């Protein structure tokens, strides 16, 4: 999950991350940590469950209309998210019409408002981060496809890891400032790698052989549409950039394939075979070992 979020931060064109998982698995914590990492200048907007269209899109500023008699636009959450991240918790429970709205805006990068006598158009480019529990409802394939990468998280099964989580939270509560200091070095390192990766990205090359293998992989697993391949290549480049490498090799492709493809596989709606398993099998066949 952390890798996926960092990749999305390096290259916004990849189109965001969808995190599937049960409750209490740290999904929103991780997303918010990303926001904190990238700093206060990058907007990070929460789209609450059940948000109404008015709050998302923006609406007539009633206050000014009624009191001053002026027609003014009160920006919604999409305006606030421009240039940053839009985080949607429980995205699979989102109302259909809000989903449609987000699809439009995500595709065009622009929010068009035509209502209540208003005609407004503003830039709304953001990286979508969604989290949800598939047990609660299915996400429409069109929306799922909008997310560049997808991740499945589970609560760690090893007791030691769980104890470590409890321990760190306990330490933080006792001395928040101390905890922050201890981890500051690691945080700065991560932030540096993201900033450096962004700078390096334009120079990262993808050899023809890698492009071909990417296409072969997508065909082998039955990925729908071309977005899968494009995302796969972009994600592999971003991963290489994060590692400070100027050329994409098999290693990066293998690392990002599951997150780039698992939510795009053509399958019967009731097909139980795990998408991740299918991708890993294909990878094993193609790359051996």
């Amino acid at each position, binding site marked *: 999950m952390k890798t996926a979020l960092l990749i999305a931060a390096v290259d916004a064109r990849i189109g965001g991350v969808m995190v599937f998982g*049960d409750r*209490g698995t*740290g999904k929103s914590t991780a997303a918010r940590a990303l926001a904190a990492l990238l700093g206060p200048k990058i907007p990070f907007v929460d789209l*609450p469950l059940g948000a109404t269209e008015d709050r998302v899109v923006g*609406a007539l500023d009633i206050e000014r209309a009624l009191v001053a008699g002026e027609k003014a636009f009160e920006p919604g959450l999409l305006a606030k998210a421009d240039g940053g991240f839009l985080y949607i918790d429980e995205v699979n429970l989102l109302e259909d019409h809000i989903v449609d709205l987000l699809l439009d805006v995500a595709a065009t990068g622009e929010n068009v408002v035509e209502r209540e006598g208003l005609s407004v158009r503003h830039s709304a480019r953001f990286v979508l981060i969604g989290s949800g529990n*598939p047990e609660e409802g299915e996400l429409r394939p069109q929306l799922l496809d909008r997310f560049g990468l997808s991740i499945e998280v589970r609560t760690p099964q090893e*007791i030691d890891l769980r104890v470590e*989580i409890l321990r760190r939270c306990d330490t933080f509560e006792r001395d928040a400032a101390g905890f922050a200091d201890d981890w500051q070095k690691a945080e700065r390192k991560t932030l540096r790698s993201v900033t450096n990766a962004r700078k390096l990205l334009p120079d990262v090359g993808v050899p023809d052989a890698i492009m071909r293998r990417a296409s072969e992989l997508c065909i082998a697993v039955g990925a729908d549409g071309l977005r899968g391949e494009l995302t796969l290549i972009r994600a592999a480049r971003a991963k290489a950039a994060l590692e400070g490498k100027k050329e994409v090799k098999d290693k990066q492709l293998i690392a990002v394939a599951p997150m780039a493809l698992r939510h795009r596989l053509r399958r019967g709606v009731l097909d139980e075979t795990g998408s991740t398993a299918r991708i890993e099998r294909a990878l094993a066949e193609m790359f051996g070992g």
Partner: protein
Amino acid sequence: MSPAQLLAADGGLGGILVRGDAEGLIAELRQLLQVHRCPAHVDADRLLGGLDLSATLAAGRPVISPGLIETAAGGVIVVTGAERLEPEIAGTFAAALDATTIRLVLIDRGVEGEAVPEALAERLAFWIDADDMPTGVTKGAAEHTPIMSDSVLKMIAEAAVALGVESMRAPLFAVRTAKALARLDGSDAVSEAHVIEAVRRVLVPRATQWPEAQDEAAPPPDAQAQGEGQGEAGGPLADTVLEAVKATLPPGLLETIRARAARGKAKGRGRGARRRAPTRGRPAGVRPGLPRGGARLALLDTLRAAAPWQKLRGAQARIAVRKADLRVRRFRDRTGMTTIFAVDASGSAAAARMAEAKGAVELLLTQAYVKRAQVALIAFRGDSAETIVPPTRSLTRARRLLAELPGGGGTPMAAGLHAARTLALSERAKDRTPHIVLLTDGRANMPADGTAQASAEQAAKSIARDGLDATLIDISARPRAEGQRLADALGGRYIALPRGGAADVSRAIS
């Protein structure tokens, strides 16, 4: 230590979910914290603050009200009738809990099928029954935060796994609770006794299994005991703790947990009754009202209403609008459909029929997925009916619940019909269109005193009286009169499919 005292001591515990009469709890809270009561149908503006419309219109300049979440910081918000919370409001509360700016007490007085949104319940440390409210006396607060050793943390982590609690929030709450208990106890360090109490308070209500159940089954091979998910025994520390916890449980609770485990993973709390969303669907006119709770202002109609009064109101540069002039848009939602399968899972050829029903349900789910419709499954056998798949669009969930469905026993038709009717009426109340599909051979034999068939027909007639859409699919090998008679009583279609496969059943319904 009562939950109220613990919550007052540590706001990071989020809050309390109470089932039943909570007046005692509230009285106790009043002595410890500032209590703000809040109805379940509160709207987002009241919670988050914003323009106070009436005051603004009266004063002629913007009057902002701070919102309940801000005002209640440091105190506690008490919501009655929490099972009726709208998703938007639940989400707003959840976000505020995440930012630990509020304490929340939810009082759930719902009946079976209505429940507080899971996402919100998850963020409250204590889930309690009003009848089973722990009490306690504080010995005075310790100066510093009590020490927590690694072994204590491990006890809690293991106990959570042993009880089948997946979410990490629960053990985190348990850790906080143990610390608070130790502090209020005047102790320097968290002891095993505090852990036992914390496990009892926080983890047990969320338990989906009890580890002893594992002893009855064959002991798992070593490899399995290493790291695979469900049914895993905790470690040795957890066993001691859980033995001690068991001693403190009220009678019947252990049975409830075991029953829950036997039924398969908890069905998940529902999302509560949903009222008509005020901004969805096709526009259907305009009515007087305040643009609150999501209802959208109809500006032109408002101005039109205010226009004739301008002269009288002495308006000059700006338009004088009063509260009575405000108009909002009404919408008519295109309601979705819910197909309710009521399946005779009794001994008579149960297995084959169940397979067909399950197959048909899965096929319908596939279509429903496309049409955004919902599917539900009720099975009746033995002496009762049970809702196996509550109305859902989630394939993952439906498939899992279907897989766990057993068959056999007598045919309690009346019970099945009654359950289908109740579910259908509840769906209708949520503005969905229910459609009942009954799969059976039409022969009722439970209760076994001879009244079964007549009761079944009575139940069918009440479905007809409610105007509910119904179809009876007769899967007996040789269709008999009972099937047609029942269909007539239902006021619905009769379809004979003696050897109906899943595809036939599903085609017959569409």
